[in-house]
């Protein structure tokens, strides 16, 4: 991945065209609704959020491999920070500091080449890093000679690193693969479409709640509709990964459709348990970073390992 390759990549340019077209279309729909006298202030705020986020994401991918990995790492750092703040782990600076260091380490390992294989991204160390990070986190109470409340702090720190850091960073590691543009752009696009489909189908047909104890807004109809859309997307966007067999397309659709909603539900029950509505206020009209990337955290690592199994990642 580099600027030159992005300019010559049909996949990258096609996605830019698709997304730009959709943005113009959505803007036109909002404009017409506004002229018809409908109240569009809430969707307009969400739309403005997209107008900022989409150029940022496309721009980062355009800049190349390093920018993409660092960009995902930044999202992971902010996401972990939101999690740490919401749970109160943030009050323990030792633990949060240790996880920040670990996230920095994770970024370096995703950037540097494997010293023996000379391929971009140190895959072996990337996969082994959680062992060392968990050891370090478990050591902190011993170093500080503390026991009270440490189980909670250690558990939150480990979950924070593994889920919001390491699992999410698989997305960044995808930038090291030869088909990076297709994988990254498809995932970013499909995960968001999946979210929007769940919302739209839910609004139109939703009656039965999906998991009423976790999220009152999610409905069975929305969920089924989103899975249907997501399963068809890889076929429509086959150009993103021309080397995929039909089996891989089916798996990709299921991973995005089911995984995306599971990721959403995971963040939902975490928020429910803590007793907050949004993870933060980073993106106007969308809540925190975690409210936006929740599905991706679940989808990225599973997609990564599916791809690795069938095609390898280097």
């Amino acid at each position, binding site marked *: 991945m580099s600027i030159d390759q992005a300019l010559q990549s049909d996949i990258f340019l096609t996605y830019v065209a698709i997304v730009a077209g959709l943005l113009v279309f959505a803007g036109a729909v909002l404009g017409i609704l506004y002229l018809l006298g409908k109240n569009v202030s809430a969707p307009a705020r969400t739309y403005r959020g997209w107008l900022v986020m989409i150029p940022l994401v496309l721009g980062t991918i355009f800049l190349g491999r390093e920018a993409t990995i660092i960009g995902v790492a930044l999202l992971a750092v902010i996401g972990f920070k939101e999690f740490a*703040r919401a749970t109160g782990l943030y009050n323990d600076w030792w633990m949060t500091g240790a996880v920040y260091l670990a996230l920095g380490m994770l970024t370096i390992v995703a950037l540097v080449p494997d010293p023996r294989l000379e391929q971009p991204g140190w895959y072996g160390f990337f996969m082994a890093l959680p062992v060392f990070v968990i050891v370090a986190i478990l050591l902190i109470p011993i170093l500080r000679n503390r026991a009270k409340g440490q189980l909670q702090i250690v558990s939150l720190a480990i979950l924070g690193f593994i889920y919001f850091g390491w699992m999410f960073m698989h997305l960044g590691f995808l930038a090291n693969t030869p088909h990076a543009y297709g994988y990254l752009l498809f995932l970013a696009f499909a995960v968001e479409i999946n979210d929007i489909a769940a919302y739209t189908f839910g609004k139109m047909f939703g009656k039965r709640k999906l998991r009423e104890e976790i999220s009152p807004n999610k409905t069975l109809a929305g969920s089924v509709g989103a899975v249907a859309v997501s399963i068809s997307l890889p076929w429509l966007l086959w150009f993103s990964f021309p080397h995929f067999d039909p089996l891989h397309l089916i798996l990709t659709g299921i991973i995005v459709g089911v995984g995306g909603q599971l990721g959403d539900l995971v963040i939902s029950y975490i928020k429910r348990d803590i007793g907050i509505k949004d993870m933060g206020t980073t993106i106007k009209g969308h809540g925190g970073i975690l409210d936006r990337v929740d599905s991706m955290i679940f989808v990225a690592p599973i997609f990564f390992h599916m791809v690795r199994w069938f095609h390898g990642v280097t």
Partner: protein
Amino acid sequence: MKEWEYQPPPDIDASMAETLQNFPREPKMLPYAIRSMASLLLRGWMRTYHHMQVDGRENLPDAGSYVLVCNHTSHLDTLCMMCAVPLAKIHRTFPAAAADYFFSSLPRSAVSAVLINALPFNREAKGAESLAICAKLLENEGNILIIFPEGTRTTTGKMARFRSGIGRLVAGSNLPVLPCHLGGGLRAWPKGKMFPRPYKLHLRIGTVQTYGHLEKNGRSVRAICGDLEERVASLGRQGK
């Protein structure tokens, strides 16, 4: 199994601007790190560019909360006072700063809250609301409040009358107050100039005063203001 207790911060739903303008602020790692770095740089700059000299540093109490009261000639006053307190206490040192000036926009709020650790002081209604926040802040051990009782920077070099806020804050309490005087600020960075000029700054820190023996009424407030004003002025005369 017992449920875990989470402690989400009170400002979790606040926007960035609100978070910066709120007081007291939640302790956060990144602002602390930036402030520590900035304080180190500031100390270096003050020492080399302004040849800052501090007399009476030994008068600063080692523990407990206290108030520093200083004449106000330029923005350098605040920076200078921040360099006089021990570096370890930088995150618990709060210069009271006019909310209508230092917190009027997002960039200004960011600089005031993160770099200077300023306490947004609302000058309306004689600052009653903000004084209550100050009093609450000083109840906690180890906080340092920096106040410029003149309320605004002088343009002539003549010290203005002290406003009543400081008197109302400390009358009838055993809170230590240290009068301070900064010389050279007016020459180094006059009001309206873009950048400071490399003139010498001389900060004199006076001895601890307490006003617990006075009752909390209008007369003692005026007496305290007059006393502090005189002490600051006499520190200023020492150099001449």
